[in-house]
Structure formats: structure tokens, C-alpha cells
């Protein structure tokens, strides 16, 4: 069963969308990453939960291991969030490999394992078809096993 037959989620934003708009779309979607699309509707990258985390919170958090002493009222935290909310999402999107709509599920599973991504964009030619999450892929496999 190719990926086109698995439940894909139409979760995408144009690359000119703001970080706040992309974060809202991500919050409402049932996948942990959005496709970021260029003018022609092609996948320019993805904007995943970890990307919004790194954008909204200070970059030094990736380097420190102890932060229990910090309060959420710390002014610099609000300043960081304010400084990114209206910036275009393309500044925070990452290039990512895509899956093809006619790829097999086992290939998708192998790519999930080796890319470390929780969701990948699926394309048909150059057109974005939808986002495939690990949860959707595994759900489809389990349903198939029950049917058989």
C-alpha cells in the first residue's frame, strides 16, 4: 500500500507566513511538523515543533543543562518571543528530504528511523500532497494487520 493511501494531513504554510501564524497552524494540526511551501507550492523545508521551540526560547538553552532557577516572568524570555513572532517562518524552516506518494510504507518507516524526524512531507512530482506522521504510518500498518 503506497503512501498516497495512508492518511496524510494537509499541514503547510507559505514561506512568507509569520512564526506566530505557523505556530498557530502547528498547534491546530494533528502532525508535529508543517511543510513550508514556496511561491510555486513546492516544499522549501519543514517547520517542526523543535524549530518553533528553538525560535521562541533563547538559543543558549541548547547549551545549558540547568535552568530550574529561571522564572517564566524573566523579561528576556518575553523579549525573545516578541522578537520572533512577526518574522517570516522561512528564517526558521529547515531543508528536509521528502517522501514520494508512490513510496512504500516500509521505506517511509526506514526514513523516519534514519532522519530522526517525526513527520515528513509527501510529494507527487513537485506538488505537496500532505504531511505523513509516524503515528499515521503506524496506525495504517496496525489497521492493515487487523483486516488481514
Amino acid at each position: 500500500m503506497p503512501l498516497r493511501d495512508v492518511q496524510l494531513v494537509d499541514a503547510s504554510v507559505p514561506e512568507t507566513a509569520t512564526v506566530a501564524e505557523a505556530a498557530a497552524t502547528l498547534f491546530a494540526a494533528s502532525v508535529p511538523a508543517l511543510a513550508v511551501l514556496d511561491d510555486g507550492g513546492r516544499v522549501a523545508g519543514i517547520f517542526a515543533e523543535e524549530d518553533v521551540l528553538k525560535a521562541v526560547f533563547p538559543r543558549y538553552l541548547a547549551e545549558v543543562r540547568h535552568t530550574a532557577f529561571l522564572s517564566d516572568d524573566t523579561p528576556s524570555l518575553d523579549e525573545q518571543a516578541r522578537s520572533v513572532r512577526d518574522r517570516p517562518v522561512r528564517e526558521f524552516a529547515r531543508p528536509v528530504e521528502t517522501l514520494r506518494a508512490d513510496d512504500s510504507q516500509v521505506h517511509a518507516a526506514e526514513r523516519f528511523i534514519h532522519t530522526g524526524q517525526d513527520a515528513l512531507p509527501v510529494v507527487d512530482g513537485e506538488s505537496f500532497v500532505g504531511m505523513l506522521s509516524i503515528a499515521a504510518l503506524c496506525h495504517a500498518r496496525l489497521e492493515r494487520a487487523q483486516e488481514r
Partner: protein
Amino acid sequence: MSALAVVIFVGALAAIAFDWAHRTKIALGGAALMVLLGIIDQEHAVEAIDWPTLGLLAGMMIIVALSEPTGIFTYIALRATQLSRGNPIALVFLLAFVTGVLSAFLDNLTSILLVVPITLLIADLLRLPPIPLVLIQVLASNIGGTATLIGDPPNILIGSHRSELSFMDFIVNLAPVSIVTLGVVSGLLALVYRASLHVEPERAAEIARLDPARDLREAKNVKRTLAVLVGTIVAFFAHSAIGVEPAVVALVGATVMLFVASDDVDEALGRVQWSTLLFFVGLFVMVGGLVEQGVVSDVAERLATLTEGSPTAEGLVILWTAAAGSALVDNIPFTTAMIPVVDEIQGGEFDDGLWWALALGACFGGNATIIAAAANVAATGILDRTGNHVSFLRFLAVGLPMTLVSLVIATAYLVLFQF
């Protein structure tokens, strides 16, 4: 064959300096070439590896890796910041002091990896530019690391090579000059950066409200872990009196630490920087090749001729040569190559002054350029990852003048107190 050995070694140094490939690959590649071309045979290559240095480094890596989750280093850095009460000049001196002391008793690279992330956080909270604060810490780490046998890789190499030099010998002979140099350099840097360091009173109040001990209270095994850390440092002070080598102190400390602070040995040993240890292995074999081919004794003879046998001149030539070499390449390979040269120069007589000259030159020289010491590379790497790029020239503009000041102080110290 000796010319070939020199070409391989100098080529490796250049490749490291210009970052053509990972330094471990370069060192191992150079070592492999020397063995395969017969510059040094297999038996001598294995003998050339300084196992006490590797043991000391591996032991300290495990001890620090297992101490870090307690949050003790974050606590120390935050308390120092609070003590400054938002006064930027006091903050510069306190951060330099904390970094210098941590570097002396852990090692400068590890200290930088521990304190720079906290400094970025502090700079963010105080709305200060992070680059000046981090550069001050880098220079302080190289100066502070000079004070002890375990503080900086050149000292580890020297202390592991000459068992006559104890941990206390390093402190007695190098700590006073390091403290003076740290004070002078911190003062000059505070002057240089004073215009860009201004703290709003409400930001200082924000820092004062933080509870730096919170992570410490919530971590596991804190008391036992800190007891092993402090016990290991005390054992370093006493190693000569109890007849135990520093490498044994570090490895026993690491073993005890594994018992008290690690549930997963594989995970704990995964924190050992194997690439650094193998970098040292490659360097030892390459320098072994230079020794085998008589290159080291040639260099030593030329230096002896140049200095006409005067111990003061020998010491000062070693100091400034080690500093220049460390600045141009990296103080680890340069010290590895200089150690057999100093052995040759002093011949049968042991003169500790020449070793202090080498330690001061290599450690202080580590401040001159961005590539001169591993701590510089690590700190600027963290700055880069957080969007604060420091170019080679920007580092040089601060590092070189401070290195020259440090070397002038070291020269005066050697002339007045060692020769």
C-alpha cells in the same frame, strides 16, 4: 628520512592550523604515515605513547562528566554573578576568577564547556553583549589553567612526562605568576570593554532574585558526587607525599565516581572524548618519529648554540618559542614536540625552570589566536551556535595583546625567581 619526518609533522601542524580536516584524523594520519614509511618502527611507536597523559585526561573527563549533572558549576557561576550586584567591572573580575579557578582544578577546556553556556544565559538576563564576557572567560581559562598540573593540556603533558614535577611543584612555581597575570589581564579587559558593559538596575535586581541552588537541591547523588570531586582534588595535592602518580589519582577518582554517580557505565564512558585521546596518540607517535630521526636533538643543539649555554637565555627562548608556536598552531602538538627538545637541552641535569618556561609559554601562548588552544575553539564554537560569530581577527585583536602582556609578566617572573 629525517626530512620526510619533518615534512609530515609540519604538514600535520599546518593542516590542523588551517582546519583542513578534524585534528584527530590529521594526527592519526600523520602517525600512520610515519609508521608505514618506516620513520618509526611499530615497537617504538607504541613506546612513544605517553600513557599517563592519556590516563589523566580520561580520568578527568569521567569525573567532570559525572559531576556536571549536579548543577554545582552552574551554581558557582550564578553566585559569582549575584556577588557582582550588577556592577559590570565586578562581573568581569568575578567571571574571570571563577573561570580561572575552575580551569586550574578541572582543566581549561572542560571549564569553558561548563561556564560559557551559563555566561550566555547571564548576558541575556543582564542584556549585556555575550562576546566580551566569553572572550574574557577564554583568556581567564588559559591563564588559570596554567596554575596547576591538571589545568591545561600542556601542563598535563609536562607533568606526566617528568615525574620529578609534582602537583604542588606546579602550584608553587606557576600559581603566583598565573594569579598576577589573571588580575592584570582581567583589569585590562575590563578597561577595553567598559563602554559596552552597562547593566540596568532592574536587570541586576532580576539576577539577585534567582535561586542558584535550586538545581543543586533537585539533582541526584549531589553530596556523594561532590565528595568524590573534592576528594580527587585533595588527592592531587597529596599525590607526591603518598607516592601516587597524578594519572592514578584521576583514574581512581573516576572509578569511585562511576560507583557513586553512575547507573549506566556505558553512558558515562560515552562522555569520554575519545577523539581527543586519539589526537594525543597520533601526536605522540609523530613526535616519536621526530625523536627517532634525530630531528629533536638537532633542534635542541641549535637552541643550545643560540643561547650559548646560559640557563636564563635558554628559559626565555623556550618561553617565547613555545608561545609563538602555540599561537601559530595549537599548544598541544607544539608542547608534545617541545618536551623532548627540553629533555635534550638540559641533558643529564634536571632544571625545573626550563619546564616552567615551557608551561608558561605554551599556556599563555594559547591565548594569542582562536586556534591556539582547544578552549578557544570550543568557546567560539558555542558562540557561533548561538548566533554570535567571532572571527579570527576579532579574537586576535584581543588575544594577541593580552598574550604579549602575559609573556612580559612571565619573562619578569622567570628572570627574577627561576634563573
